């Protein structure tokens, strides 16, 4: 975990701590999703579709080629047709997008989801969808920086 990821994770955890009931927590997640940058409709192709969730999810990764000697940086846009899933995508974006492949692979996502109480609040189906997105991000990172595999 690098310092940005650490700060984002802290901020999320603190925000989640503020909410005592599920309603506020869900509202917060939905609001996070509303801030997501939309994906260009032409990029919503089968290759960018993430399966494993009841919602329709697209994720478009972009690898920033590093200067000599630097690690590649992974950016991605993602979008779902369901509001809560969009919020979960926003959380993943905060943690992962714009990060070095090595930091993406080193990040303890399970720990964060546990800390946010998301593991316990999400149904197994939803968790499955979330894990599919994380898998897709990690696979992109591994492709970008095979030395991390």
């Amino acid at each position: 975990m690098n310092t940005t990821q650490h700060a984002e994770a802290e901020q999320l955890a603190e925000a989640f701590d503020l909410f005592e009931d599920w309603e506020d927590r869900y509202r917060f997640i939905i609001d996070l999703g509303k801030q997501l940058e939309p994906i260009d409709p032409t990029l919503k192709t089968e290759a960018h579709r993430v399966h494993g969730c009841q919602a329709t999810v697209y994720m478009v990764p972009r690898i920033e080629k590093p200067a000599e000697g630097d690690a590649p940086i992974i950016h991605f846009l993602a979008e779902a047709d369901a509001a809560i899933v969009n919020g979960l995508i926003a959380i993943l974006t905060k943690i992962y997008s714009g990060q070095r492949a090595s930091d993406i692979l080193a990040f303890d996502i399970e720990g964060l989801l546990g800390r946010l109480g998301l593991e316990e609040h999400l149904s197994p189906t939803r968790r499955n969808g979330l894990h599919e997105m994380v898998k897709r991000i990690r696979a992109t990172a591994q492709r970008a920086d095979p030395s991390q595999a």
Partner: protein
Amino acid sequence: MQQMTPQQSIALNHKRIRAEFPALHQQVHGKPLVYLDNAATTQKPEAVIDTIDRYYREDNANIHRGIHALAERATEAYEGARTRVAQFLNARTDREIIFTRGTTEAINLVAQSWGRANLAPGDEVLISHMEHHSNIVPWQIACQQTGATLKVIPIDDHGQLDMDKLDELLTEKTKLLGIVQMSNALGTINPVATITRKAKAVGAKVLVDAAQSVPHLGVDVQQLDCDFLAFSGHKIYGPTGIGALYGRLELLEEMPPYQSGGDMIKSVAFDGTVYNDPPYRFEAGTPNIAGGIALATAIDYVDQTVGLANIAMWEHELLTYATEQLSQVKGLKLIGTAERKASVLSFTLDFAHPLDAGTILDRQGIAVRTGHHCAQPVMDRYGIPATIRASLAVYNTKADIDALVVGLEKVREFV
């Protein structure tokens, strides 16, 4: 509970009916449970739970072989359950009842046993656009294996079968017609007796998927005149992992085994095996004995304790009420508005994705189903990825519907 007569108002006895189902009396996320996912599976009454408990505590033994008292008790109860299923479906003999794991296994049995033995290139299998995957995929596989072709009867915007197209598609090439009696995704009730008559006229065999209809309507295989009929125990207040296939005896006698192993044989030698008679020919291995016995208890509950006529009457009243109430929800669109339908309210919201709605309803203790309901072709027909489905059972009340409507307004606030 004593049997109720149809003259009594079912609504008056709701307290008693609900008291029979322990799972209904719990809180979910701190709210009283409102269970509206009955098309997926129903809750179980005390009587069914007690039967399973008693079997394992007192009678547990393998059936058909043992000479000892427990084996005899278990065999008697299991075969008694077969007789009860036969009687419930009005089969001619209990030899026409094969215990399976459920509807899906029953249809697979017909596809793999009857289908592989009787289908050939040039033959056609006809199903409808409103089938769930369990009555599509087994036929796709059987057609691939035999060279037969799968044909589909279309449905209209209300979710009703296109009967003119049915007449067009039914030809002498049609060897089997597989049809759902009541759609799990739309609630549509199909005119199965009429369809069977038409299919018989061209010499086709008919399989009825009664998974959804058996708990809500009376099913009489002789009156329907079908060749096969499949249903699951868990949708009729019985346990999971048990169901039954009704098959016309003359057909079962000609059909080869589907799975092999104990109970499906008369004698085994390395140079040849003599298969047992139906239904045992199709029941390889130790079956779900407790499940079979408890299925009979569930049937008693439906058929005698409450009464199918009472169930149908109450559910009809509830469906009418629910349709009215949901129609008041702005932005809600019912999917499946057939003239004859039962127990299922499938809908979309213009303000929320089904997944968000399902999640927010769950937080309010309301259990509905969201998704494609294992009937993706139905969703494709309406150009939607999923619906929210509230499905009713005898223990549901108007208060459950009111809670759903309040819950949906909460969903609107959220998204």
